């Protein structure tokens, strides 16, 4: 079994190396054949491991020693349990689908082999992240997925927007990683180890220890550690205020928007916090912070999605908002619900993105929904699968998103950490907004009159099977994944992995009321979220299918509000002024004034000038006339004699 563990990350790595280093020799077909088979092998291995874990065979062990320094050992190792096994299946499954889809999507691209190499490399990195048994390797995977994300956003490197977006993504992520690394350093300092098991075992003993970060104040170290770690999650999982990179990341090819920027990488932050539940549970303050940040992201990013016209950007903002849901769940100590939503979201968001990609291919790389419409007649499979995903996203009972989202909302309802009221309002109201923007997308794209030009219209057709097959396969869990809510969220599936303190345990209360999938659906009909969702779908239908003139009127009437949303609350402008321009101004000032004027100008060249100046003075005494020298000698002798005599 341990060899199988190694196979899971190493197979995609091998594929990445082969396609990346030898891509030009083995050609396009062999590149995708090799990488897909190796990812498939990784997927099969993940399934075998999953069932092995279900039998109770978990694993925690080291692969090799990375470094020993002082009293600390840094290891590379695997922790295989219910949480990592679940993540491995999700990652390898979505990755496999995206690999297949890529054959169709990138068919005409010159960088075909490179693309396969990157997404296989991503699969490797993500596997290293989720399978890690220690913080160091977690950080490895964490930054490695960031690297691949950087490479893939900038995949079309001649586009100015793409190479701006990828740098922005990397740097914003680095801000998160900055906090994350400090958190890891604190862990090492107080626990003397970076091994999860060792740290979690000791955590309860450290509950009362404090640190004076600012002299005179006193902070619980667990709170400081958790908040620093969460800063890392904010970067990777694009939580406010570090969310700015994710919408821009849509500059990358659509398959990676689905794989990296929706289904897997961006959920790494959620995964990490769930993994660290034994730490986070000990800090109510940190949970509060997570709740509020998650709440803000959920609501405010969903609102932005309503005014976007670029089909991928709608889905991107939807991703932000859904990540907010997961974060709120974490803050409410409903870790299992967060992971469950992570899973259902991976499926339905992958369908939405890959479907959007299918539309984009058909539209000849036009992404503006204002130029679409009526596509359902031309692309029935894409339409059907996206419609299912939209229902799941809007939380319609029966579809996967409903179960996971409802569990989160109810858990927040029962939670009692500070800030929960605000978060509850956010997640509840966002149900309406989610249904609105999701179905706005569906109606604008697939319904109504066709608004594209004649040329495009003439060429409209359904995408090839390599594109639609992944959509259809992914549509199955989009519907059905939710039905497993009983064992996964309310059951004891995660009992060994996730720790929840009794006073935070909202999930347990929910579980007591849980009467099965059918019961949950029937119960939902009498609750607010269901009706909010219906209202959202209805509003979208009315505004974007029946009275399509109204949105324009609203836009004109509430110009200020519209601009605020359209410009994403001006956060990008603020950051680019404050940080990008600020750093450059400061750098220039330090260079021109500090280095050139003071150090070089005054001290270095000043010393040289002082030497030259004194030399020019002293030089005057070197006249070369004997009588000058003789006179000086006489004066000297006179002075010496005087001093000697007295």
């Amino acid at each position, binding site marked *: 079994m341990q060899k199988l563990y190694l196979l899971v990350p190493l197979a995609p790595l091998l594929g990445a190396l082969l396609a990346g280093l030898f891509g030009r020799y083995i050609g396009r077909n062999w590149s995708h054949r090799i990488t897909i088979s190796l990812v498939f092998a990784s997927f099969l291995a993940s399934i075998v491991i999953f069932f092995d874990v279900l039998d109770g065979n978990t694993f925690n062990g080291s692969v*090799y*020693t*990375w*470094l*020993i*320094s*002082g009293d*600390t050992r840094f290891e590379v190792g695997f922790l295989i349990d219910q949480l990592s096994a679940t993540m491995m299946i999700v990652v390898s499954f979505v990755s496999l689908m995206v690999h297949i889809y890529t054959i169709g999507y990138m068919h005409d691209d010159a960088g075909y082999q490179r693309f396969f190499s990157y997404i296989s490399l991503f699969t490797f990195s993500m596997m290293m992240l989720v399978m890690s048994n220690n913080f*160091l390797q977690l*950080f*490895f995977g964490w*930054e*490695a997925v960031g*690297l691949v994300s*950087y*490479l893939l956003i*900038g995949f079309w*490197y*001649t586009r*100015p927007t793409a*190479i*701006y977006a990828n*740098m922005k993504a*990397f*740097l914003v992520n*680095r*801000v998160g*990683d*900055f906090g994350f*690394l*400090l958190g*890891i*350093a*604190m862990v*090492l*300092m107080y626990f003397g180890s970076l091994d999860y098991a060792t740290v979690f075992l000791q955590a309860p003993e450290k509950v009362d220890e404090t*640190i004076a*970060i600012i002299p005179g104040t006193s902070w619980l170290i667990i709170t400081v550690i958790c908040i620093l770690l969460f800063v890392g999650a904010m970067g990777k999982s694009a939580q406010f205020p570090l969310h700015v990179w994710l919408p821009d990341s849509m500059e990358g090819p659509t398959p990676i928007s689905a794989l990296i920027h929706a289904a897997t990488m961006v959920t790494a932050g959620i995964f990490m916090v769930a993994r660290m539940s034994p730490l986070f549970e000990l800090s109510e303050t940190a949970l509060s912070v997570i709740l509020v940040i998650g709440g803000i992201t959920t609501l405010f990013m969903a609102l932005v999605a309503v005014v976007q016209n670029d089909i991928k950007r709608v889905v991107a903002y939807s991703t932000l908002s859904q990540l907010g849901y997961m974060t709120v769940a974490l803050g409410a100590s409903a870790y299992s619900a967060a992971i469950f939503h992570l899973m259902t979201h991976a499926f339905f968001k992958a369908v939405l993105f890959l479907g959007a990609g299918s539309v984009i291919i058909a539209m000849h790389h036009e992404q503006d929904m204002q130029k679409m419409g009526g596509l359902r007649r031309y692309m029935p499979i894409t339409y059907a699968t996206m419609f299912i995903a939209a229902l799941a996203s809007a939380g319609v009972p029966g579809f996967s998103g409903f179960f996971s989202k409802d569990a989160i909302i109810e858990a927040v309802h029962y939670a009692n950490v500070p800030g929960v009221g605000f978060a509850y309002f956010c997640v509840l109201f966002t149900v309406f907004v989610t249904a609105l923007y999701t179905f706005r997308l569906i109606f604008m794209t697939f319904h109504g009159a066709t608004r594209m030009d004649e040329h495009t219209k003439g060429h409209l057709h359904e995408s090839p099977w390599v594109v639609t097959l992944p959509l259809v396969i992914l549509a199955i869990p989009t519907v059905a994944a939710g039905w497993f809510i009983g064992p996964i969220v309310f059951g004891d599936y995660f009992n060994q992995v996730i720790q929840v303190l009794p006073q935070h345990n909202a999930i347990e209360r929910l579980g007591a009321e849980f009467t099965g999938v059918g019961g949950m659906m029937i119960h939902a009909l009498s609750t607010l979220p269901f009706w909010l969702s219906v209202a959202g779908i209805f509003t979208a239908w009315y505004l974007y299918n029946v009275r399509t003139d109204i949105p324009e009127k609203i836009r004109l009437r509430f110009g200020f509000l519209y601009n605020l949303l359209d410009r994403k609350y001006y956060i990008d402008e603020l950051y680019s002024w404050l940080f990008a321009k600020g*750093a*450059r101004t*400061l*750098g*220039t000032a*330090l*260079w021109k004034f*500090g*280095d050139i004027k003071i*150090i*070089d100008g005054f*001290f*270095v060249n000043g010393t040289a000038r002082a030497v030259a100046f004194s030399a020019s003075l002293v030089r005057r005494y070197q006249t070369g006339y004997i009588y000058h020298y003789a006179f000086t000698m006489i004066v000297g002798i006179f002075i010496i004699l005087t001093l000697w005599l007295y």
Partner: protein
Amino acid sequence: MSFEFPILSLVIWLPIVFGIAVLATGNDRNANSARVISLIGAILGFIAAIPLYSNFNSASGTMQFVEHLVWFERFNVNYHVGIDGISMPLILLNCFITPLVIVAGWEVIKDRVSQYMGAFLLMSGIVNGVFASLDAILFYVFWEASLIPMFLIIGIWGGPNRVYAAIKFFLYTLLGSLLMLIAFIYLYQTSGGSFSIQDYHQLAIPLTPQILIFVAFLLAFAVKVPMWPVHTWLPDAHVEAPTGGSVVLAAILLKLGGYGFLRFSLPIAPDASHYLADMMIALSLIAVVYISLIALIQADMKKLIAYSSVAHMGFVTLGFFLFNAIGIEGAMVQMISHGFISGAMFLCVGVLYDRLHSRQIADYGGVVNKMPIFAAFFMLFAMANAGLPGTSGFVGEFMVIMASIKTNFWYAFLAATTLIFGASYTLWMYKRVIFGAVASPAVQQLNDISKREFAILAILAIAVLWMGLYPYPVTEVMHATIDHLLVHVSNSKL
């Protein structure tokens, strides 16, 4: 006592002998034989150094491969060399970089080839001598001698402003080392007539003289590292130096300063080191933050990398003055890793400069379209420069950050800003140079790297990745020595 083969002397003198042989080939009519002899000498130099690693006893913290010959009996000056876990990795780094530099200058240098190649071989042997010397006078001779080849390399094969840069380099470093000589003379007197560095480690010295000795050493070493605020010679020297000169300067010569702190300042003046640690840490952190901001706005690629070197070396001095094992080992790892990465970065700029004769970022753009293989290498080294895990650039910074938080949260906080700054200046430069559409007709003419360039970059790439993925062997050889050093430093000598 049985006869032992003087491997260490071989490592020091073999490159010097070859250097002289190369010089003997004379003018450029024999340029090719000069190149071949230099390469053979450099490679033999590296091979000769391998036993230093393979026969090294990492369980021991004392000097190994020791050779002792009387030089000037009257002043008790000896030819006394030996290595421990601090100097051995640095000697290997030096012997590793030399052949790469020779190959990097292969076709590029057309004038005075024998002198150019000879200078690098001489430099290589001299630097090995610095790292191996256990006698203060021998050390001082090698230390000052190392200035001369570099002075010539910058002054003869440098850019338009080479004379200013060469003189600035020379005077800056010479001034620093004069005080070191005075410190040696004082130590000679106090120790009752010994120039043995190991004797100095045992000397009891009151605090005030210790501080003075520390300051005297500080000036010598801080200039070399270079630490803020005595760093301004480095950007000028780098900008004017030929590619090979920049590589050796960044990869090897800067390490002399770091080595000096470990060999002299910390063990000879431990109380002063503790007393002044806060100041040293402050200077190091200024280097990390202030210099990074300056690096961000540079328009000249070499200047940018030079400033980034200063920022990265800030981690070295920061690690030293935390006085714990992980900090000092991290600083050592950072020195070796910086040797690979900065060397590779300067080589990458050299590749571009050889083609377009410009170092200005603005003259490039879209290079990836014409040089995809080069772009891939450059990407790897840029990421390593930004401290990406999995590359060697991460290891040292990670260790030093882990160590610094134990001393003070804010030290770690400021040090960790390198995560953001390092990525900012490196990737912004990369974006403007490599990405984008082809920016000019000149870029349109670029050819991808030759086999020769590929070989150099590939070797460095392997080194960078290997050290990032498996740093264990690198630190393994240092443990005993650094533990020994730490014990020494924690005992007061007042």
